[in-house]
């Protein structure tokens, strides 16, 4: 009896003995900087026991002492640790440098950053999404050295123009080529959702762009859209942003009632309408035509990636009101990227993207009128009705144009829609272990339609009793690239990558425009117009085919080189001149990998050099002499000489050499310096011929322009701990532009600019204003005789037209600051330009010394004043009725310093702590506050020194608004 009870007792206790050996152990995994490693795999050796660390890097397991744990995670060296006595184990994983070879997207593939020979700058998504914009191009402002982003207008959805390494083409485009996921889309900003962008690579030198052949001369912008993250669990990101925009007219201000009255008093305005009663009326036209505008930006993305599937789905809605009333944009985006590994060999990669733009009920106020109209003209009568300025009697309405945009706006409006559809069907097939067949096939269709309604009661509609206009535009592009890629490493030291491809690209577009007049009120279709008035239509086509070859080789990651060649044929040239070859060759040396190199402080030191030839392709049919058959005389179609053709018209060729240095110091400071020398020759130029030829000119390949410069980018992690970080970066580029050769060495004069050998492209050519004669307040110009004697004159016609400055800046660039404290981050991004001159065309109207009595005039900025009495040394002549002959015509009087420093963006963000989030099922949440375009330091008296492109001329335009945004990003 006693024995069985003891046995039973022991039997009952047995499990406890067994269990007593297994204990609860808490494992904590972190990396070298102390950050928890999420999702690290923990496996108990020789068992199937294990798990993954959570969002705090922790995992709790039942373990036995002596068991060996294997802990691994992507990017880290796998570690083994034995379970000891303690109940908590802390593991620090080391970075696995071998697996973390950063890879950069380049032409037709990727390259390891370590062995790149070309001038390529990659900007990742986090650095791009600070600004609030629906346009991808705007995100690059100030961020990449050598890349100038010039906004066109502040209208919602307007895309900026981009110039890389200076302007080099006179008549063809200076815009870079855009490539999205390997598909060449053209020279204009593709309508991409900025939230879909994973990274942008800007290819700057010939060795980077030569593979784009006859379209690469202006640089290439490669966009890669997002994919899921292999190894991570499926995530859904939601981001919501609301912003408020303010109209930002810069330094330009027009007068109010009192100021204008005082100005007219000094002018001695003799008109009967000029009397003190005017001071009782003071309408602020700018305020009446602008508003505080709202932006909504909401996006949802879904990512999921496994060994066989990689899916990225995103949808977004962007809505922006214009700061000028009456023009709002709604944009909808949908994208699906799928990488599906059907078998070991075959992966298919379909992609779909839709973008829909809507502008509804557009009744945009006229900014031109808002600036021009007088404060003494009130747009609304006392009873609130809108004044019809056109039919005002006598001096009831003083403004010269007799125009009150509020009137027609009551009824007239327009709508527009665009629908863009991108479909790619790409696939990769592994023929052999090292040989892959890559096929990229894309079909893009764009469709745009617009509608405009003019009411019979409006002034625009009076003559025709109203009108309805419908326009449609359709555009199809096809792109296909069939490529073989070979990549192999021999003897561990020699790595070779080769590619060969055939590419074909074509497109066609068609547009139709119809207009009916005499329409019923609120009509919406052509049929309600009794009189068909206009039917117009046109079409266009182009095609191109190419062969590409490229190879790169590296030895131990120490010495590397790359070469490429591409042959292009295009429809824009005559049959005999259709094909061209473009090549590049480059080499580099990673000095820090040499045995003799022994510096702890210098981690990376790389030098590289490249040389290549690329092309710039015009459009159109410049080689054909043609007759126009669009017009009639006495009702019969007439054939009118249209163009004098040039049969041997061909590409512009750009030959570029580039030398660069990349260095990293102290593991925290990155420096890149590039020197480049680019010559664009055979420039397509519309050479003016004497009118006596019967043509104003014709296209020829003449002349060459060089751009030589230095680009400099520095990025420094000044402090980088888990709690606190300071990161600063600056980039600057110095470009010197020179016209090396022109046909026959003769100057080409166009309007107010001149192209002359030895001068820059973008040189102003006009009469030189010297100031105001202190004796009598009249304008003074410079006269330069043939022998060089300089004298002065008051006569505009007698003044000598001469070179007066250039529109090219001496230096452009940007800088950013990034401060991080625990979960808060404060960043700022600036861009600047120094040394460019800018011609303020609007001053012809607004600074006319009295020529225009019935346009509003600009308020003179500080430092400028008008002549009043003999002895005054001032900037402006004595104002008088009728102004001065030529006084407000083109001269260097209106040529101003266009330098500026702009704070593009400031952003304060807070990342919510992980723990409380996780309980809600949220993995990440961030809230942020941003301000865009907060302040611009400039002496330029016009609206905005950055809008209007690189040409050097700007007028009153729709300025870029100032924005304040609040946003929230949540990941599940």
């Amino acid at each position, binding site marked *: 009896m006693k024995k069985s009870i003891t046995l039973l007792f022991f039997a009952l206790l047995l499990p406890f003995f067994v269990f007593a050996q297994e204990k609860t152990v808490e494992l904590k995994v972190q990396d070298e900087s102390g950050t928890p490693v999420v999702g690290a795999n923990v496996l108990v050796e020789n068992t199937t026991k294990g798990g993954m660390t959570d969002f705090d890097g922790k995992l709790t397991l039942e373990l036995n002492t002596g068991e060996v744990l294997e802990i691994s995670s992507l990017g880290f060296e796998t570690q083994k640790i034995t379970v000891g006595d303690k109940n908590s184990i802390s593991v620090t994983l080391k970075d696995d440098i071998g697996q973390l070879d950063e890879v950069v997207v380049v032409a037709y593939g990727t390259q390891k950053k370590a062995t790149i020979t070309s001038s390529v700058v990659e900007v990742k998504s986090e650095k791009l999404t600070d600004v609030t914009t629906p346009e991808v191009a705007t995100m690059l402002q100030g961020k990449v050295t050598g890349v100038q982003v010039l906004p066109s207008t502040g209208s919602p959805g307007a895309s900026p123009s981009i110039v890389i390494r200076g302007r080099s083409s006179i008549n063809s485009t200076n815009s870079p080529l855009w490539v999205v996921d390997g598909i060449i889309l053209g020279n204009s900003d593709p309508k991409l959702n900025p939230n879909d962008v994973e990274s942008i690579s800007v290819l700057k030198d010939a060795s980077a762009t030569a593979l784009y052949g006859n379209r690469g001369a202006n640089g290439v912008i490669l966009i890669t859209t997002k994919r899921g993250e292999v190894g991570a669990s499926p995530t859904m990101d939601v981001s919501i942003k609301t912003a408020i925009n303010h109209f930002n007219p810069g330094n330009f201000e027009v007068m109010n009632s009192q100021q204008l009255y005082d100005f007219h008093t000094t002018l001695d305005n003799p008109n009967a309408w000029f009397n003190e009663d005017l001071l009782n009326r003071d309408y602020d036209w700018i305020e009446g035509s602008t508003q505080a505008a709202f932006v909504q930006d909401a996006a949802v993305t879904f990512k999921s990636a496994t060994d066989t599937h990689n899916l990225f789905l995103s949808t977004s809605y962007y809505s922006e009101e214009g700061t000028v009333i009456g023009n709002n944009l709604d944009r909808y985006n949908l994208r699906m990227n799928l990488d599906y590994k059907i078998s070991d060999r075959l992966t298919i990669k379909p992609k779909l993207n839709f973008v829909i733009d809507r502008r509804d009920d557009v009744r945009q106020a006229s900014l031109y009128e808002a600036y021009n109209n007088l404060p003494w003209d009130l747009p609304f009568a006392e009873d609130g009705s809108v004044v019809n300025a056109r039919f005002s009697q*006598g001096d009831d309405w003083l403004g010269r144009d007799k125009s009150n945009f509020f009137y027609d706006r009551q009824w007239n409006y327009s709508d527009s829609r665009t629908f863009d559809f991108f479909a790619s069907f790409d696939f990769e097939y592994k023929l052999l272990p090292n040989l892959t067949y890559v096929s990229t096939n894309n079909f893009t269709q764009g469709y745009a339609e617009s509608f405009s309604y003019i009411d019979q009661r409006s*002034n625009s509609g009076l003559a025709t009793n109203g009108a309805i206009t419908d326009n449609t535009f359709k555009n199809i592009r096809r792109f296909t690239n069939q490529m073989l890629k070979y990549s192999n490493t021999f003897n561990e030291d020699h790595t070779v990558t080769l590619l060969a491809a055939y590419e074909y690209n074509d497109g066609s577009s068609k547009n139709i425009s119809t207009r009916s007049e005499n329409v019923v009120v609120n009509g919406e279709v052509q049929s309600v117009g009794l009189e068909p008035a206009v039917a117009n239509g046109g079409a266009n086509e182009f095609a191109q085919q190419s062969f590409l070859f490229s190879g790169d080789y590296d030895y131990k990651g120490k010495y590397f080189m790359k070469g490429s060649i591409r042959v292009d044929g*295009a429809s824009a040239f005559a049959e005999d001149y259709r094909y061209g070859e473009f090549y590049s060759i480059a080499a580099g040396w990673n000095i820090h990998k040499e045995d003799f190199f022994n510096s702890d402080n210098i981690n990376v030191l790389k030098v590289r050099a490249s040389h290549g030839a690329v092309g710039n392709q015009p459009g159109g049919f410049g080689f*054909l*002499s043609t007759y126009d*058959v669009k017009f009639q005389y006495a009702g*019969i179609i007439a054939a009118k000489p249209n163009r004098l053709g040039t049969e041997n018209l061909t590409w512009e060729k750009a030959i570029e050499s580039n030398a660069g240095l990349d260095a990293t110091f102290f593991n925290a400071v990155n420096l890149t310096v590039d020197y480049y020398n680019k010559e664009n020759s055979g420039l397509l130029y519309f050479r003016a011929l004497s009118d006596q030829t019967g043509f104003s000119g014709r296209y020829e390949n003449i002349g060459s322009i060089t751009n030589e410069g230095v680009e400099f980018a520095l990025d420094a992690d000044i402090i980088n701990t888990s709690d606190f970080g300071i990161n600063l970066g600056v980039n600057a580029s110095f470009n010197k532009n020179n016209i090396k050769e022109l046909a026959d060495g003769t100057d080409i004069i166009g309007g107010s600019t001149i192209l002359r050998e030895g001068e820059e492209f973008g040189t102003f050519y006009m009469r030189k204003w010297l100031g105001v004669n202190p004796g009598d307040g009249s304008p003074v110009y410079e006269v330069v005789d043939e022998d060089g004697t300089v004298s002065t004159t008051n006569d505009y016609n007698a003044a000598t037209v001469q070179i007066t400055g250039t529109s090219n800046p001496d230096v452009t660039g940007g800088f950013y600051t990034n401060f991080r404290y625990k979960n808060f981050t404060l960043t700022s991004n600036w861009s600047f330009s120094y040394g460019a001159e800018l011609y303020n065309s609007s001053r012809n109207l607004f600074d006319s010394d009295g020529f225009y009595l019935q346009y509003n005039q600009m308020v003179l900025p500080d430092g400028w004043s008008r002549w009043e009495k003999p002895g005054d040394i001032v900037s402006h002549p004595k104002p008088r009725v009728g102004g001065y002959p030529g006084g407000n015509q083109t001269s260097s009087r209106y040529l101003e310093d266009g330098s500026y420093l702009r704070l593009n963006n400031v952003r304060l963000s807070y990342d919510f702590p992980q723990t409380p989030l996780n309980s809600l099922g949220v993995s990440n949440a961030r809230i942020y506050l941003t301000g865009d375009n907060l302040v611009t330091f400039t002496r330029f008296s016009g609206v905005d020194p950055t809008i209007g492109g690189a040409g050097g001329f700007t007028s009153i335009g729709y300025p870029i608004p100032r924005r304040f945004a609040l946003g929230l990003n949540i990941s599940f």
Partner: protein
Amino acid sequence: MKKIIFTLTILVAVVFSSCELDRSPFTEISADELFEDPGAAQSATLGNYLFLKGDKGYDGWSDDLHRISEYGGDNVMISGGTTDPLFFFYNYQRNPNNSRTNRFWSNSFKAIVGTNRVIESLNEGETEEQDQVIGENYYIRALVFFQMGNVFGRPYNQGTENLSIPLKLTSDIEDLPDRNTVGEVYDQVIKDLKKAESLMTINKGPSFASKEAAQALLSRVYLYMEDNQNAIDYADDVLGSGAYSLLSSSRFSEMNTLAPSENEEAIFSITLTKGIDIPGTEDWFTIGSFYANIDGVGWGEMYASQTYLDLINDNPSDLRKSFIEPQYTEDSNGQKTPSVYWVNDQYEYQFRDVTESSGTLTIEESGNTYTIESEMINGSTQYYFNGPEGRQDVTYDYDMDKRNGYPKFFILKASQQENDLHLWSPTVSRLAEMYLNKAEAMAKEGMDQQALDNINILRERANVPPYTLSSLPAGKSVLDVVLEERRLELAFEGHRKFDIYRNGRTMDRKYPGSHLNNSNPFFEIESTDNVIIEYIPEQQILIQPSLDQND
């Protein structure tokens, strides 16, 4: 698996199925293709007319010519400033970069080279139709050379050695002649017109050139040269052809509404077609739109000058007044306000409302009341009042809508063709001019009575009393009266400026208008002045430095 690869290969093949790279433009024809067609010469000739008309009826050769020739005369005034370079034709503030002058020069040579191309591609004497086409091109070329000579070269009687324009006689782009002399240009014009006269035998109506059009232009050219007998003879050729007749008085007063094909008086007009030219809202770019605002369309900034109005008001029944429409103000009941107006010493209009009580008309002036008196002079009533500075003659009419203080006397002569807003086919030659050419040539030859006979035909048509040698206005010679008649009849048709200077007269600009509002106004311009002709476009001289600039 194989199925998938197969499908993919087909897909890829389908995608790059077309690799042929030939593409063509859609809205143009290559020159080679065009001249393969037998009708090419006809189409290309129409293209030359098209340069004269302008693609859509504005901004063409005749548009800029009108601004240069009419605005420099004394029939018009502008009520304010304008950015449009036509302003400088009006106020004589010339500028070698005037974009309209540049365009006129450029359009002229485009038309000239266009005609040269057709002339070179055809042989004379093959068929009547072909000769007609060749003749039309010679006419167009001559017309363009002639008018260019008037714009850039001095009048013939100031010296045939003066510089005029380059005579471009080929379509070769390497052929770039320098400026020829005035004499050479006139010789070429006459040669071309005579050739045209001999080749053209088909009269297709006033939209196209014809033998009679060549003769009409020859009459004018000889008149400008002061070869009076030839001027008379060629005018008689046109009058005797029987192809044209003067519009009746009632049709004349609506002359601007007639399309050229409906106008029996039109010899050659650069024709705009209703429904095709000036589409949609583009009336704002026309000549007529600067003269008037009709149905809300038009700038309405340029009006009839005070001196022209004074002249035409000598005979209030003059039918030529139907081309001027004063914009009277109306109150809410549609009533006009009786007013008097005059022009003061500062060339400003002074309007005063007239109050009537028991038959007496009075006005208020600087706080005082003055009575309006009247007296008869030469059969018409002259109103006046005795003001603080003495007698002030006034016009008694109604109050008018004004712009910057200038009353709006809209000019309708360049608008309303077929009652379509500002549609208008500029007249190159019409029958009335033949009478005027004859009258002027005769007056210069001392054939006074015959001169008067010719202008009396026009006066009768215009419903004004004829002149007799004994009833000429005091101080006026027969030539004076003939030139006045020419002014009245051909006003707003682009003749006046040339007529004054070629006759050695002084342009009198002493009347209200914004031409006086600047630091260097021209109250008078002598015929010997430099400013009467335009500068050669500066850009053209920069491209071809051997072209001499005008003073």
